[in-house]
């Protein structure tokens, strides 16, 4: 997994509430195996006209400089709906490394950390403020996301601290594989099951 320490770049405001994973990655892009080359399908039904690859000029990610965005700004409950991890793969493959929103749907939020994508939760007013500032500069003023210091630096250099769970932070900072991390606890897992087989045998024998 790619490490995440500090990034600086273009932030694209897509300030809608309840952006669901069907919208982030349309279902018709689902039947693929590899975790790469999903970027073309990102926001497919909004980004393209009539279901083909003709770009919709009104969609923000089709407009310079936002085509090169590495940060996405969104409104509350980002990533709701389907559990499809392709939604995360599509964002990452497009080049997005961080999504900043007032809240995230939980399955999407969990999926992010396994793929080097950082979901940052800021206050509703803060996200809107950053979005306004980005728009005022037509996207030219960059945004920094610093996972070491746990802060976002907005387009007018204002600092917004955020919190992120320490386990996930370590995973991203070091690019750790979460399965390898959990396998370090194998003896505890084995001990749990040993007791549990006595307490709740019906779980293991059927």
């Amino acid at each position: 997994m790619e490490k995440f320490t500090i990034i600086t770049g273009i932030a694209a405001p897509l300030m809608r509430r309840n952006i669901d994973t069907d919208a982030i990655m349309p279902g018709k892009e689902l039947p693929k195996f590899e975790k790469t080359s999903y970027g073309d399908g990102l926001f497919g039904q909004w980004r393209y006209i009539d279901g083909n690859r003709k770009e919709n000029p009104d969609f923000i990610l089709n407009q310079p400089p936002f085509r090169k965005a590495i940060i996405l700004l969104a409104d509350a409950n980002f990533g709701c709906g389907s559990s499809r991890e392709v939604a995360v793969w599509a964002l990452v493959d497009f080049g997005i490394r961080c999504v900043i929103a007032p809240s995230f749907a939980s399955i999407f939020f969990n999926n992010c950390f396994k793929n080097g994508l950082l979901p940052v939760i800021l206050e509703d007013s803060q996200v809107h403020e950053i979005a306004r500032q980005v728009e005022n500069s037509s996207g030219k003023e960059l945004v920094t996301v610093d996972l070491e210091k746990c802060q976002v630096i907005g387009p007018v250099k204002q600092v917004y601290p955020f919190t992120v769970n320490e386990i996930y932070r370590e995973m991203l900072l070091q690019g750790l594989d979460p399965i390898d991390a959990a396998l370090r606890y194998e003896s505890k897992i084995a001990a749990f099951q040993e007791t549990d087989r006595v307490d709740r045998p019906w779980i293991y024998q059927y």
Partner: protein
Amino acid sequence: MKKPATLVDKIWDSHVIMDLGQNTYLIHIDRNFQHELTGATSLNGIDNAGRKIRNAELAFGVMDHVLDTHPGRGDETPIPGGTGFIREFRQRATSHGIRLFDIDDPDQGISHVISPELGIALPGCTYVCGDSHTCTIGGIGALAFGIGSSDAEHVFATQTIIQTKPQNMRVNFNGKLGKEVFAKDMVLYLIAYIGAAGGIEHAVEFAGPVIRDMPIDGRLTICNMAVEFSARTGIVAPDDITLDYFKGRRFAPKGDMWEKAVAYWRTLPSDPEAHFDKEVDIDCNEISPQVTWGTSPEHSIAVDGRVPNPAQAPDSHSRMTMERAIAYIGLKPGTPLEEVKIDAAFIGSCTNARLSDLREAARILKGRKVAPGICAICSPGSYQTKLRAEAEGIDRIFREAGFEWRESGCSMCMSGGAGGEGFNTGQHVLSTTNRNFEDRQGRGVRSHLASPVTVAASAITGHITDPRKIGG
């Protein structure tokens, strides 16, 4: 004395392997159920990384998402690339010794339907599946989470997941249900009331007298849509109805083990003094049959209501969202829902395709015909559900009314959005499914969510119809 605990606290705490700090835990997963999409992807990941499956005996698989639902189906599916997933999952699941309910298995069906039906999901167990509607399983008193394919890989390799503990929320359904009002109407009403993000970060226990009297099928329907208001999961405390449901099921405990399990399950309901971070009361007397007018399950109103006017939205963001929804759905503000003509009707999905759903719809359809030009499809939730319905003559009622009677699978809830068999652009579809998102049932398709009874009534008249007016 022990601190009073909620049902969710009790199940969670009994599955903690390690406290990782900051409200994050390594928890044991008792049941890992995967389908051909996330199953193929996660096992592919396992094999590529050269990992072992830790507890193959706690893993189950089924074909439900991309497979065809036409009679006589095989591996070929209208969803582009779908066949590859079916074959890949079959091959990898078999090689790892995972019990698989394949296309021709007499217990095949939608995972969230067959898992309780077979007694694979049990009260008090932790349960995961690579699908957001895994929360359905909460209806039998399990703690069930939808996960992505990386987490599915994680569970295959470690039999655990790392999760933050959800906050506790309780929704009390009080009062009494009116005529032709069902579990689906209750949950749509709730979502419209608290909003599509109303349950975020909470595990939601559904309680109150209406839930206590409700059979398992309805509880599963309500929990199914917990994710539609962004709850981490939904759950109903196990009770006599739950125990009666499980007794004798294929994978449920038997003999002494059954007695031991029952004694444990009896300890699970929330303690009377348990703390809930959020509590919502719903008066069921207020609930009419519900239909969605827009593109979010929160866009749900009484069937005899009118499409709302965005100008009356409480804030500018709501107005913008409503305007987008109205533009997509192609209805003018103020239009009575009952004047909306429909092009198609679908009864199926993990929300509403269990036997009681089919019986209720059949009651309305009996001796009637769907309106001319309506494409009407029913896909039972499982092969066993289909067989039981056929034994009761329900299939004949559906067929004689003009419904297609399909095989089981995610069917028209999944296929159209995935580039397979879908409805046509601009068509209005009345559907017993759980998502009315843009393009969910095909490019530009306008989905309206409702109960099986409302869908059946509307299929007959050809427009959105209040089932209380049609009778049956």
